[in-house]
């Protein structure tokens, strides 16, 4: 959110843009020119579709700022004229997400408006495109003028901030005539937005399916291998009080497994609380150290267990020297790539493998306990999402208050600026309703700025990013591999959070799909103090200036942005999907396949629901419920059914 702090004082009218016509963030193009993500679009096209200077929009009341969701959003991307921003910062920060979509919208609009009065209205756009190229050629062009709409002291302050922070390049340019939008064009814009919206979610699902499938397949492979006659399967851990035996009755099983699952859930809760406390006290280093130990244990110890299984089942003669050497390398490189720097794909591989290892270690739990655990987790996640005083919520709040990211293990899809677009369609559909929601949100903000949490089912879009620029799922990845064949998983939260870039990491919500604003770092920064706000803006603008110069030093802001743009999925999701399916894999192949399809469909459904309702939804429950339902239905009806059909070679 770009303007929470000003708005908090300025009242529900929000922060009107103080300057008109944000200059085109052409720098983004230069900055991203080297990234592989741009491979999809020819460079020329992207350059052409560069976002022109925004245009002042007086009727920008019905559409929130693309970047931060604030009202009114008076600036419009002049190239595609379909997205609006409240300020040029917002446009600049959104550009890396918007540029691709911008190109497509422009193309689509040109198609659709060939015979309408496109010429007249789009003339500005055409000029804008040309100007953009000019501008790139001479980015230091002096400003042509500026117009200020000042609505309050805070806006003035913002203007001052901007004045101090601005580099020449970012000076506002002469305001342009605002386009006369006909209803048809409006419809076309909305259509284009809807298209972009749909595409965004489609691609997010598509991008998320692959790693999840890989993780699931890996877990299945581990389970199948270890079932092939290994003496080293993960076993029930010692702290489960009840041991399932074939002779125990159903009621015994239920009660005992409930107790076991309760113990594990209790551990999860306790570790979560410890993490919250540590975080509130500001012991970030401790947390990171904790995560590093967890990851090291997971890679080293579970890797060892898995290796034992593998070499026994595959009958590999392996000596200790080689094994220790390989494990040492594997774990250290994993640690480095996850916690330090590394190629994105390697991080993805490691995170996926880690999740599958964790899931494998959890297959040591007895069957009833596993189901109970999954069921309890679903319940607990729902509670954690809905309960206003859940520890995770406190964690998120404190992370915002402290401007600190909660360290977390996140799977980052390599889609940093990939086709992200805001789901504006819904807003357009019932703009009034959303406006009310936004107002209420604002009121809420005023009342309690800290309570602004995206995942309590409110219109996170209104308060938060409306872009869904990134699906990110952060996870309270306090995996705690227990040391006796490790079934201890404590307090992991899985999330598919539509978290905007930088904001992703301060979300430690469990099993949430949520949307937050892309620019939430600013949200964080701007939460309390104007000064911080200033510095952020300065950072941003200076970053842009540097990009123009081709300087490769990017500010921290930039760094944050880069990270957050992509799709991030918490390892908790990976782990629990895989646990369910690994458990199914221990029964039969048919159950495995059915559960996989069910889980994937649940995940898709969750993301689609998110796209439809635009509000926080827990991610794990749908998938896990589908999976469990399918498991039992398959196990008790389908498998016997197929067992009869199969040998008779009857195909139905």
């Amino acid at each position, binding site marked *: 959110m770009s303007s929470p702090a000003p708005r908090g004082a300025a009242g529900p009218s929000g922060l009107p843009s103080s300057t008109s016509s944000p200059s085109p963030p052409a720098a983004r193009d230069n900055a991203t020119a080297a990234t592989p993500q741009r491979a999809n679009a020819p460079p020329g096209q992207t350059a052409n579709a560069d976002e022109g200077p925004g245009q002042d929009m007086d009727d920008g009341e019905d559409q929130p700022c693309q970047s931060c969701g604030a009202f009114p959003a008076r600036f419009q991307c002049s190239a595609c004229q379909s997205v609006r921003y409240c300020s040029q910062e917002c446009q600049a920060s959104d550009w890396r997400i918007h540029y691709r979509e911008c190109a497509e919208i422009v193309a689509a609009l040109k198609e659709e408006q060939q015979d309408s009065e496109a010429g007249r209205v789009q003339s500005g756009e055409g000029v804008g495109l040309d100007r953009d190229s000019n501008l790139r050629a001479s980015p230091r062009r002096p400003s042509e003028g500026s117009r200020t709409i000042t609505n309050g002291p805070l806006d003035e302050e913002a203007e001052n901030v901007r004045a101090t922070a601005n580099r020449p390049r970012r000076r506002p340019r002469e305001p342009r005539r605002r386009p006369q939008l006909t209803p048809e064009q409006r419809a076309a814009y909305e259509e284009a937005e809807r298209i972009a919206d749909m595409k965004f979610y489609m691609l997010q699902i598509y991008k998320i399916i692959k790693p999840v499938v890989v993780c699931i397949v890996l877990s299945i492979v581990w389970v199948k291998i270890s079932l092939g006659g290994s003496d080293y399967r993960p076993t029930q851990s010692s702290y489960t009080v009840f041991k399932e035996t074939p002779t125990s009755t159903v009621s015994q099983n239920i009660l005992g497994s409930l107790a076991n699952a309760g113990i594990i859930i209790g551990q999860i809760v306790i570790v979560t609380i410890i993490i919250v406390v540590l975080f509130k006290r500001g012991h970030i280093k401790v947390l990171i150290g904790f995560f590093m130990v967890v990851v090291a244990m997971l890679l080293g110890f579970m890797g060892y267990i898995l290796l034992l299984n593998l070499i026994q089942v595959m009958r590999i003669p392996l000596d200790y020297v080689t094994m220790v050497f390989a494990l040492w390398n594997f774990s250290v490189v994993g640690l480095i790539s996850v916690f330090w720097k590394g190629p994105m794909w390697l991080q993805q591989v490691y995170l996926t493998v880690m999740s599958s290892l964790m899931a494998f270690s959890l297959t040591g739990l007895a069957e009833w306990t596993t189901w109970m655990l999954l069921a309890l987790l679903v319940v607990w996640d729902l509670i954690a999402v809905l309960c206003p005083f859940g520890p995770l919520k406190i964690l998120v709040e404190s992370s915002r208050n402290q401007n600190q990211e909660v360290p977390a293990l996140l799977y980052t899809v390599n889609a940093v600026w990939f086709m992200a677009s805001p789901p504006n369609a819904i807003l357009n559909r019932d703009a009034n309703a959303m406006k009310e929601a936004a107002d209420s949100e604002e009121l809420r903000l005023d009342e309690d700025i800290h309570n602004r949490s995206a995942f309590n089912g409110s219109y996170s879009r209104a308060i938060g990013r409306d872009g869904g620029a990134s699906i990110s799922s952060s996870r309270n990845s306090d995996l705690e591999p227990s040391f006796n064949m490790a079934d201890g998983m404590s307090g992991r939260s899985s999330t598919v959070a539509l978290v905007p870039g930088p904001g992703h990491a301060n979300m430690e919500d469990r099993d949430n799909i949520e949307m937050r604003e892309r620019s939430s770092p600013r949200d964080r920064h701007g939460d309390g103090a104007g000064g911080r706000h200033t510095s952020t803006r300065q950072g941003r603008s200076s970053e842009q200036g540097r990009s123009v110069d081709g300087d490769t030093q990017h500010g921290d802001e930039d760094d944050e942005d880069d990270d957050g743009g992509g799709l991030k999925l918490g390892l908790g999701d990976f782990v629990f999907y895989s646990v369910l399916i690994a458990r199914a894999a221990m029964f039969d192949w048919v159950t495995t396949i059915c559960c996989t*399809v069910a889980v994937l469909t649940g995940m898709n459904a969750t993301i689609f629901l998110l796209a439809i309702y635009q509000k926080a939804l827990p991610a794990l429950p749908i998938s896990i419920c589908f999976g469990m339902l399918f498991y039992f239905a398959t196990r008790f009806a389908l498998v016997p059914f197929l067992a009869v*059909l199969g040998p008779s070679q009857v195909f139905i």
Partner: protein
Amino acid sequence: MTLLTFFGCALTAYGPSLAIFFGCIAPNAQLVILMVSSAFFWLLSLLLASAIWFMAKSSQQTFTSTIIYTVLLQELFRWFLFHLISRAEKGLNMVAHHPTSKFNRSGYAFAAGLGFGLMFGIISFITQLVQSLGPGVLMCASCPSISLYFISALTTSLLILHHCAWMMISFTGFTLRSYARILWVILTHYGASYLTLLNASKTISYGCAYSLAANAALLIASVIIVVADVRNLHYKSS
């Protein structure tokens, strides 16, 4: 020999459909999602069928009656899926590469059909496929010289392709309210299923050959209908 059998059967059964999947479906985000959802629908239909089978204890071994409701349920879910897709079609079209193309619906039908088919193939053949890794071999009852696994693999392969064709025909049928096409789909589905009963027949020798040949013929007929429909669409649109 076991690994050879395994890979031979796996590639026979799933090779064509996987080639289609990786060649045509996988690069396309919305088709992948469509496929997963249609696989889910097929699974739902089969779970319902198995629930019915589970409750109908007396007829558990009579396949003729089992096939009746199983195929009926599948066709019912195909119809549901059609309604779902036509509701979502606007959105799907928007996301498509060519939003105004007349062939989008055919593409969706094909992806959905492949979802049905692949799910069908996996569910009905995977158990046998895994068994084929084992040391023993089972022979087909009607053709004792060929292993059961290979006959099943061939049938699976044919039926997966069948599902693609059926889905496309029935989508055209539902769209144009052409009852002949819907009837064709239902009849050929029943026909294909009942033909597989020949596989295990002990009275008809070379039953599996008849079954496979007839199924292939049905598939060719269905494909001809599909091609004709698509050509019609093409001429209509141009």
